């Protein structure tokens, strides 16, 4: 993955988050407080405002800067969580100019670990981790972004059967069962969008 490709992926995430503001917010309003879509959209808008000035030395630096903007500018739970994820992924990328699929998987693992540490959460808590980890596992196993996106979608759908153990939804205990987690579904939607733009830009890193 080149710096251009990294840029494109981040840009796609930003555009998709902004485009899905209402959908993500509605998901968060079932057992949450309905601001997830708004927080994400406003944060990524801020990222795009300073887009041209982001340090593009290499993919790692670019992702770290992205994470810092997000962490410092998005409010709610999502700012620290998503910011940490981007910063950790950037850190794992190091100074490499081209990233192999193995490296991308390692970056995703770093992001996951960062989220776990920041959120004191784990797989099974009904959070975005429950889509991000299956996505990463599948990417590692298949090296196929489409398969990975499908795994994320399946896992996100499956959060509907879970009881929330972290985040605002956790306050509702058993009542959180029956609806998907907003963060997990966002990961699935973003993964799908990334998989859609992927082949048209060349299949390999």
């Amino acid at each position, binding site marked *: 993955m080149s710096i251009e490709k990294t840029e494109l992926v981040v840009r796609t995430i930003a555009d998709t988050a902004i485009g899905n503001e209402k959908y993500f917010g509605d998901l968060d309003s079932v057992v949450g407080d309905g601001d997830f879509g708004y927080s994400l959209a406003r944060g990524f808008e801020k990222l795009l405002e300073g887009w041209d000035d982001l340090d593009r030395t290499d993919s790692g630096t670019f992702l770290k800067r992205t994470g810092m903007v997000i962490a410092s500018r998005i409010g*709610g*739970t999502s700012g620290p969580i998503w910011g940490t994820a981007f910063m950790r992924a950037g850190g794992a990328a190091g100074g490499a100019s081209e990233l192999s699929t193995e490296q991308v998987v390692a970056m995703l693992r770093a992001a996951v670990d960062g989220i776990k540490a920041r959120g004191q959460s784990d797989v099974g808590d009904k959070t975005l981790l429950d889509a991000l980890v299956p996505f990463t596992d599948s990417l590692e196993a298949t090296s196929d972004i489409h398969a990975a996106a499908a795994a994320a979608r399946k896992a996100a759908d499956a959060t509907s059967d879970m009881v929330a153990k972290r985040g605002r939804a956790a306050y509702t205990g058993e009542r959180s069962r029956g609806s998907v987690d907003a963060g997990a579904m966002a990961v699935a939607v973003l993964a799908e969008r990334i998989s859609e733009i992927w082949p048209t830009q060349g299949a390999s890193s």
Partner: protein
Amino acid sequence: MKKFVNDPKSFVPEMLEGIALANPETLKYVPAYNLIMRADMPNENKVSIVQGSGSGHEPAHVMVVGKGMLDAACPGDVFAAPPMDYVYETAKLLNSPKGVLLLVNNYTGDRMAFDMGKEMAEADGVRCEILTVNDDVAVQDSLYTVGRRGVAGNFFVIKAVGAASEQGADLDELLRIGRKVNDVTRTMGVALTACTPPAKGSPLFELGADEIEFGVGIHGEPGRERRRLVAADQIADDLLDAVVSDLPYNSGDRVALMINGLGGTPISELYILYRRAHQRLAAQGITVGRSYVNEYCTSLDMAGASLTLVRLDDEIETLLHAPAESAIRVF
């Protein structure tokens, strides 16, 4: 959505600008960080007291910035904890040799933003301490959540540490006082209707015409359970029972009793609840030493109320009696 709103994205900044325009002599507004601060702070002889939290709970917290209360508030968007940047910059702007006390309502987002903001400010040499408020008994203690939520009871923590800091208390003393007040404060709320966040434009949840949400959160989070709408006295009893049994408060205790409106309920109805709660406490041998009936911590336009008790001792009662000023005033 029937609200006085222009662009939902500018809801919070416009409100803050309004507060600043209405209080030109006492307050300062720093738009970059949603910051409302006392014009006469920082003061090197006083610990600075700051609270963040999401917006939509007004008058908490931007309207209780003033002498004897908060020195600054840096709210996030509606129902969203402030970004850590706001916390960081606010701590720096309010930096005092006596330190900065950061009050945090106990939610994941707020805790993360304040933890990160504090770390960054400390790296810049600002002495900060965090005091967490968690008075909501609706959330049964659990392994899974960050624990009880911080709701209307935060008013009493602010009032007590605000008064003590005016009297010169240092940061450690404020932590002691704040924790002590938080430890004897419990709240339970109920929603009659859902609130409508400006950016969402429609009610956050659906409640049937004869349903209430018992134990609702101030962000519209579902509570303990849906119940049927019953008479005001019954609702007051249910709220009170949940609160009294939690600490518990006992016969012989002296308490502050707050009936807090959630935004859409008129003050007349709050007094109907107050009446019953006061009478029932008296019947249980619990004396109301001080009463609070108003809006303190709302959930936008939600119709509903919460009931808070604080167990008083001489120290707490004296601090609650101390003079204070803020933007929410009548005269």
